[in-house]
């Protein structure tokens, strides 16, 4: 595996972690804040519907989580399963695309 690609993946892992640190904090604080006064699920869905800001927020969340999770799982598979080579890279890309698709689908369904 080339030093260049591995370094790029390492940077992507750190950058996505930095993005997620902010987004996860906002996500959790918002949940606690929103349900504090007894807000129902239907009311939450109504507020999200058609909201471009939340769409962008959760789209970014989904993409960062997909990148971070896939790169992390690739390393876990290398170290704990001894899985190496091209098949692992293909599997990691599939995991990334799957996570991104699931996240973006949910984002789309809630906010558009």
């Amino acid at each position, binding site marked *: 595996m080339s*030093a260049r690609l*591995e*370094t790029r993946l390492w940077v992507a892992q750190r950058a996505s972690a930095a993005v997620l640190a902010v987004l996860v904090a906002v996500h959790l604080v918002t949940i606690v804040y929103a349900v504090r006064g007894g807000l129902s699920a239907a009311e939450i869905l109504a507020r999200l519907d058609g909201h471009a800001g939340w769409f962008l927020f959760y789209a970014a969340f989904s993409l960062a989580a997909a990148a971070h999770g896939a790169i992390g799982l690739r390393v876990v598979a290398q170290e704990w399963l001894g899985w190496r080579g091209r098949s692992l890279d293909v599997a990691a890309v599939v995991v990334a695309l799957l996570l991104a698709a699931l996240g973006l689908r949910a984002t789309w369904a809630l906010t558009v």
Partner: protein
Amino acid sequence: MEQSLSVSVWRGDARGAFREYRVPRRENQTVLDVVTWIQRRLDSSLAYRFACRVGMCGSCAMTVNGVARWTCRTHVSRVAAGGRLELAPLANLPVIRDLVCDLEPFFEKWQRARGRFEPAAPERTEFAVVAPQTPERRAVDAGIECIGCAVCYASCDVVAWNPEYLGPAALNRAWTLVNDVRDGAHGARLAAVAGGAGCHACHTHMSCTEYCPKGIAPTAAIAGLKRLTLRAWWRGEL
């Protein structure tokens, strides 16, 4: 002081087993003293390594009660809780026999990390002046006292999980060289230590820093290499 120690010593190769010995307890006794006593008085077939006995050569490292240590400077009083010692060869290295490991993979990785000085100006004959207070020289000072004992390598979880990983000592050596202003292979060395078998594989568990008998912090060296490789990648030099 007339007690005795019960000492379990690994005998045989990787498929060997522990054998029990009783060794008289002495004042100011080191673990290496114990091993030497066994070899001279009880069992001359015991294989182990040592040379200097004063913490300079890096050849006597073993696993003492589960922890990699330099045995010549490890006092029995510090490690033998309840008068028990368990001595095994270093982890993460092939066992040749008894307490002796094959260190070839360890030093082979120093080569792979380009852990050798490559002069930028080989034709120069006068002394290079390196000011002691410069940040580069200070970074070199922090890591240069490595004696190559492989205690860090044997203590590293990432080496255990990823046999290709260069390990703390080789990366620390590379870090001292990328800070050596007389060296001319900085870029090639950064390329050699970047990636999944190099500095980016480190999980910052800090076992190397915890157990290094010389008080070196390879974790800091590896973090430095991560910074420099990041900069090189950003500039398109990697």
